[in-house]
């Protein structure tokens, strides 16, 4: 091969690199290993993680321990879905493009909006992306009003980007667990809320969207997709952009990623939507087919004026999402969500009955709710975990006003027996921690 090129050694092919920049020795990395050794190392790392197979997990707060049906892996592990690139040559990418089209349809149905893209990275960055759409659609406005019950990561991601736009992010406080919008002026670009909100409460999207529109602002709702099967669709309520975290739909926890973000919009915002969109068309023989469409929105054509810089997104994870939604089906998704609804109600009743545990609010919830403990929450969590049950997310770090708050999530994997066990353990842990504190006080 070197002869064909006309050089004596591979070294010569790197002649353009100045000699003093070329590394004299090998990189300071360990030598390569056999497949067996690498497997053993990765497994040794895996066993030092407590997964949802090792404990009963009531942790939610944005990602949830659902059952992922076996057929998803069997499809997404196929080479034809796993290994191709973005479908720039549509004639040999109809599988991926049609799957995107089917996915977009499902998201439109869940959100009640007519337009969906083919995925963005995940939930919080989808909220930031929605902020960018609002900024471009509503130029000259300087502020986002963001519910205090928007996921803390979403709020932070938006703030990080908004800083570069010279825009500010202002909290709307909560009243009794629900967003309490302040008066809005014409500086507000968008009102951003979460459904159900971070404390599990079901918001009145119609009222919030109405208030936003009255001020000429857009309304963005970050949604948990399964609850959307029973709640009034955001689009029906007047929401302009419905986005959210898609992990719940057929994707693994994977310590936070990869999952996917969904992004749906009104017709008016179609040409401002970021990311890939698959569209229907026909070929020269009149056969129906699919292509990436409205590409003039995107970075590879519009460059500095693009709706977003996004290129690679989360296509394989969105595929898992649409397979999952097909598996649940039109009625199955409602049955699943209603099951979680009933179990959540049961869990809430059982926990609220514990001495030293009170509901943080009594708003309607779907699959997650918040309680306040009369004991140090981390110590209570540690006691439960030691007994094989992870009781939930400690709210204190993000919400100093709920110092000993605990956010408890229910999925179809949490049976009544699991919930009863949680209640028993919490009862014991709270009591133990309270008596510890009493003793401490007494000792002084």
């Amino acid at each position, binding site marked *: 091969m070197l002869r064909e090129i006309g050089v004596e050694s591979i070294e010569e092919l790197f002649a353009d690199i100045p000699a003093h920049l070329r590394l004299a020795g090998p990189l300071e*990395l360990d030598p390569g290993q056999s497949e067996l050794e690498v497997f053993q190392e990765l497994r040794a790392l895996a066993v030092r993680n407590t997964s949802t197979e090792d404990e009963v997990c009531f942790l939610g707060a944005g990602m949830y321990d659902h059952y992922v049906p076996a057929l998803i892996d069997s499809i997404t592990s196929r080479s034809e879905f796993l290994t191709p*690139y973005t479908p720039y040559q549509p004639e040999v990418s109809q599988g991926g493009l049609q799957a995107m089209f089917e996915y977009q349809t499902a998201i439109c149905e869940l959100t009640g909006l007519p337009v969906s893209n083919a995925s963005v990275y995940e939930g919080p960055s989808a909220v930031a992306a929605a902020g960018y759409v609002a900024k471009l659609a509503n130029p000259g406005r300087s502020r986002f009003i963001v519910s205090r019950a928007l996921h803390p990561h979403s709020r932070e991601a938006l703030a990080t980007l908004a800083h570069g736009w010279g825009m500010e992010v202002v909290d709307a406080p909560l009243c009794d667990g629900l967003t309490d919008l302040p008066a809005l002026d014409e500086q507000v670009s968008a009102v951003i809320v979460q459904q159900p909100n971070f404390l599990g409460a079901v918001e009145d999207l119609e009222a919030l969207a109405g208030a936003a529109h009255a001020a000429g602002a857009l309304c963005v709702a970050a949604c948990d997709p399964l609850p959307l099967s029973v709640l009034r669709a955001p689009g029906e309520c007047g929401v302009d952009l419905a986005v959210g975290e898609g992990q719940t739909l057929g994707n693994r926890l994977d310590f936070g*990623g990869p999952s996917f973000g969904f992004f749906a919009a009104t017709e008016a915002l179609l040409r401002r939507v970021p990311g890939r969109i698959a569209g229907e068309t026909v070929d020269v023989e009149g056969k129906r087919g699919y292509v990436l469409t409205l590409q003039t929105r995107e970075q590879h054509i519009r460059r500095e004026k693009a709706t977003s810089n996004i290129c690679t997104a989360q296509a394989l994870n969105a595929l898992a999402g649409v397979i999952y939604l097909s598996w649940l089906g039109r009625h199955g998704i409602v049955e699943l969500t209603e099951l979680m*609804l*009933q179990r959540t109600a049961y869990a809430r009743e059982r926990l609220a009955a514990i001495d030293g545990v009170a509901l943080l609010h009594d708003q309607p919830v779907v699959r997650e709710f918040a309680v306040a403990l009369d004991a140090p929450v981390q110590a209570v969590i540690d006691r439960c975990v030691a007994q094989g049950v992870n009781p939930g997310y400690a709210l204190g770090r993000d919400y100093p006003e709920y110092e000993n708050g605990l956010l408890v999530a229910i999925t179809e994997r949490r049976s009544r027996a699991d919930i009863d066990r949680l209640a028993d353990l919490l009862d014991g842990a709270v009591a133990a921690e309270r008596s510890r504190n009493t003793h401490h006080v007494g000792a002084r």
Partner: protein
Amino acid sequence: MAFTAAADDQLTIYERSKPGRRAFVAPALDVPEHPLDDLIPARLRRAEGERARLPEVSEPEIVRHYNRLSKRNFDLDTGFYPLGSCTMKHNPKLHERVAALDGHARLHPFQDPRHAQGALELMWRLQDSLAVIAGLPHVSLQPSAGSHGELAGVLLTRAFHEDRGETRTQVLTPDTAHGTNPATVTMAGYEVVKVGTDAQGNVDLDDLRAKATPDVACLMLTNPSTLGLFEHGIEEIARIVHDVGATLYYDGANLNAIMGICRPGDMGFDIVHFNLHKSFTQPHGGGGPGAGPIAVADRIEPFLPRPQVVRRDNGNGAQPFFDLDYDRPRSIGRLRGFQGNYGVFVRSYAYIRSLGAAGLRDVSEVAVLNANYLLARLRAEGVLEHLPVAYDRICMHEFVLSGAPMKHDLKIRTLDLAKRLLDHGVHPPTVYFPLLVDEALLIEPTETETKETLDGFAQILVEILREAADDPEIARTAPHTTPVRRLDEAAAARRPVVRQRF
């Protein structure tokens, strides 16, 4: 290349649906049942008749539907995929096995760090490996893709300047830059200024000197460039940029050419992003997932996204503790939720551990060898007469040809050549990028292709050109043997149909 052509292959999952069919069976209700109205007021709920119109199909139908769809895709495991700038190298199958281990796959992102030591240590070690490869000491794994890493880099630059009390308004990018670069600049709130390319395919140093003012925050560069060429004047570029106090950003899309050979940190770059779905074998998945971690110099470190994965040593011989550090007062904040695309980290880490130092160097050497060899073959076969190389230099891991002479002599365009390649069971190279080259064809073979595959590809090009000389219509109406023929993209854009209509 065989594609099944069953007549009803085209139905969507919605068109296959029949009322009452289902795959999912809900677990039995094991708690007392409350009326729905008691739990959620009716005005907040969907009415019975308003259920989302999701499919109604059984499991066998779902499996068959998506399996059939899959057979309408070309993929890397099946054939050659010389997409320039995308680094379509083989995805080792071990990676799927390790990524699926429960301890990695079923780990909640809010799990207590004390119970996620394996994950945090893996991330820390991956960070360390990437730092070594880049020659820059501090790494954040948070960004989810290359363009996300670019956004992080420009926001870090902004924070760096603001910290020094400066407000700068411009970012420079070469006219050969990938579209994500200027799009990122605007998203970060800066103005894009383009820098020209000289006749040798390098950044035009005179143009750079003229445009590098103290109002410039950063220069974003890819090296080797998107033309597949190493920047001759990279050190002078770094000097010019640093002299006006700006940062130098490295777009890692072309890292496959230089691993173990040289390091961006040594060239003077302050911030580097990696595409783990390019050089580090994360499967592309038809458009993601990927990951775009960044490595930065000391002076940029304080601004890294929050949280950072850190290693805490007690110093008394105890096991180190790996943790998520949120205490970063000058951080730009977050770009996304949780810690990043961990599943991608598992695969990339396994790759680096498999190859090791010598293996990574081999990767780049063979990538560059393969590209130069293919170019030499094309020259020997006379292909370059119709598709001349844009810059007559030793290329690195990829090279650009121009289809302008072919368009004039043979009456077929780069687009037609690409579509005809589909009939030969090969994925076309990248077309019409970079913009600087007329009728561009950007070819990147990667190191995991055999000499036979490269020889075969050269022969296919020879055949297509010969055929075009005889009858250009064949290529101009190609492809002929794919599941669909050329599609009407104009109609799709004029009257967009982006969802199933019921």
